[in-house]
């Protein structure tokens, strides 16, 4: 149809030129503006792994090995290969190579420690369909971090990860590995009670005592420690409050502790769906029921929910 519109060859030539120019405009629009670290950081912040790989690779062509620029680019390239999608054995191998380069050549020890941790993560997680999970190798990698950086904040994280490779082996007979994982964490916490991840560790210990060990006494003890330190996932701790309250009331006969958690549900996580039941439980236990702003929204004329039907009405 265009032939009829354009007519002679001259116009066709013009059209060709237009098309070529258009293609150049298009291509330039998609070309990276500048292959520098700032651009790579933006790509990283936007989880644009492919863009980050392109930029970091370009930077590494000129960066001096061991320099700050080289370290950042190599590490960035490593995590970009680690997480680019779809993952494959090639991308993961490339990531491992880059992590190893960091460990061997980087002077900034923060990068070295994180690269060592990442090697553990590669062993622990299933990255692509044929990938084999190797918890032992993962644990070894984490333990190397603890051994090399015992006083760095990353050591706590490494201990937590190493312990988790034991705890998640739920299938061990008698749960020996689970218990050794818990022991590992408890020892670390005894020595480092103020670790940045202490609350996470206690919560994890509590969960492991609860399931698969079914040791409710110790589970509650661990949750009490979390409560003392402050819950990590603020606003979403309602289910743990409920679990702690249930353990205390139903299995351990500790009504005071149960009441404490019921009250916390009402005051701190009123929209967890359990506030009303917590009020009932407190009444049942004969404890005072705190008020919550959430319940102020209910019209006073309406009837209570439990047992009988209630209606709200309006006549516009």
């Amino acid at each position, binding site marked *: 149809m*265009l*032939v009829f519109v354009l007519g002679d*060859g001259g116009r*066709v030539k013009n059209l*060709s030129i237009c098309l070529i120019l258009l293609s150049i405009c298009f291509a330039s629009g998609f070309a990276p503006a500048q292959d520098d670290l700032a651009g790579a950081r933006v790509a990283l912040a936007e989880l644009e792994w492919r863009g980050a790989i392109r930029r970091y690779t370009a930077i590494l062509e000129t960066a001096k090995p061991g320099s700050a620029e080289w370290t950042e680019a190599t590490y960035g390239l490593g995590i970009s290969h680690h997480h680019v*999608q*779809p993952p494959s054995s090639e991308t993961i191998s490339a990531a491992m190579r880059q992590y190893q380069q960091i460990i061997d050549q980087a002077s900034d020890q923060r990068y070295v420690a994180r690269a060592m941790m990442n090697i553990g993560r590669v062993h622990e997680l299933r990255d*692509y*369909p044929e990938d084999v999970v190797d918890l032992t190798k993962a644990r070894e990698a984490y333990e190397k971090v603890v051994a090399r950086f015992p006083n760095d904040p990353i050591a706590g994280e490494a201990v937590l990860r190493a312990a988790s490779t034991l705890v998640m082996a739920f299938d061990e007979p008698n749960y020996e590995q689970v218990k050794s994982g818990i022991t590992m964490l408890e020892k670390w916490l005894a020595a480092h009670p103020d670790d940045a991840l202490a609350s996470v560790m206690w919560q994890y210990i509590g969960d492991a005592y609860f399931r698969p060990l079914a040791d409710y006494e110790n589970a509650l003890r661990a949750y009490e420690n979390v409560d003392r330190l402050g819950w990590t996932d603020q606003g979403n701790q309602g289910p743990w409050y409920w679990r702690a309250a249930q353990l205390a009331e139903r299995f351990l006969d500790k009504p005071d502790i149960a009441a404490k958690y019921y009250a916390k549900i009402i005051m701190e996580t009123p929209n967890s769906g359990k506030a009303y039941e917590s009020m009932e439980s407190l009444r049942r236990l004969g404890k005072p029921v705190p008020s919550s702003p959430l319940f102020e929204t209910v019209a006073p004329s309406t009837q209570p929910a439990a047992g009988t039907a209630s209606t709200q009405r309006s006549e516009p």
Partner: protein
Amino acid sequence: MSTTNTGLTRAPAGGAGKIHPPGSTGVAQSAIAGYWQRSKLYLVLMGLMLPSIAGLILFTYYPQYGAIKYSFFDWDGSESREEFIGWKNYTDAFTVDPLFWQSFKLVLILLAANVLKMWPSIMAAIVLHRLKSERFQYIYRVLFVVPMIIPGVVSLLVWKSFYDGNTGALNAFLNATGLMSALDWLDRTMAGDGTSVGLVNTGIAKAVRDQFEIFGIHGIWWMIIIGVLLIIARMISGNIKKNRANPIAPYLSGGAALMIIVGLALALVFCTWPTRPMNVFSMGTTPWLGNPNLIIPSVIFWGFPWVGTVGVLIYLAGLQNISIDVYEAAELDGVGSIGKFFQIELPLIMTQVRINLIFMTIGTITDYGFFLLLLGPYGGPGSKGMVPGLYMYSAAFIEQRFGYACALGMILFVILLSITIFYQRYVRVDK
């Protein structure tokens, strides 16, 4: 770059068409020049086609390639779950998924019904074609075109309201004419318990539905399968005895037709019509789209009197190509109106019939939007309105199994391709 070396010389004026003695350089140069001239034009023309071809490749073929690729993947539509699993999706479709194959039963019934529903359009086109007054012919043609501008969704909603149990026009009509009472009577008598008199009693139903079950497939479906096998046998025997008389061909064709028609008729009666009373007619508010047993009949009745505007126009175009001489010759031979239809018009619009048949088949097998809007993603109560396209949609968008949905799509594609090839080869077109 030397133009001589590459032969890029412009041919002398008038030289392109001249005959030169073989082997002369002038001839060769002129031929090359002529070829180059033509090539240049072809290149420009092909260059102009490039955007369309690129668009076609990018927007039509690339997604198809994606569908083939992902049919071998466990894919949930996101990048985080994209694993190659070989033929697993296909084996699942054939072994794990009874509902997918069950949905083909409905398609088979709809295909048979749609073949019958093509006839009113052919008839309408012929009536229109035979109209003597050109003015009226024009008016009718316009009248056929006007509904095309009404969006499909509007017509769907109109029909949906037509079927509404309480306010629908269909029930109003049936109640006003007393036909609803007749349906109620049929419902009670047809659903006999073995003692009552009806069109179908439990004894016959049991015999056909249950007693003739072989390899877990009802006798009715075996009839259809045998019919299809006979068609294949007919095709093979036709190919073997291409240029010779084929004495068994008529028997194979006849047998196939008999098996398929009777099988489909029985399927329609026994497999879609319940043997238990439905008790939905006595109130006069029959839920045509709410009762699982009425969904298939309602979908078949949909669009009555089934005069499709596009179909009529296509047939009309074919009819208008028939030379007036043929009619005159037929009249001299004393052929009547019906004779003209069977001996002239129908054979000469078979190309159009075949096109519509292909479109209808593709539409019937792949359609899901109609059923989705009408019955929801689960195909209505009892999934009675579940067609393969809808099942594919549910697998992708409800279950988030996009890879599996792609595999179902590929199976549908192969089935459609086979049917289309069959039509192309075996739907007879007389020129």
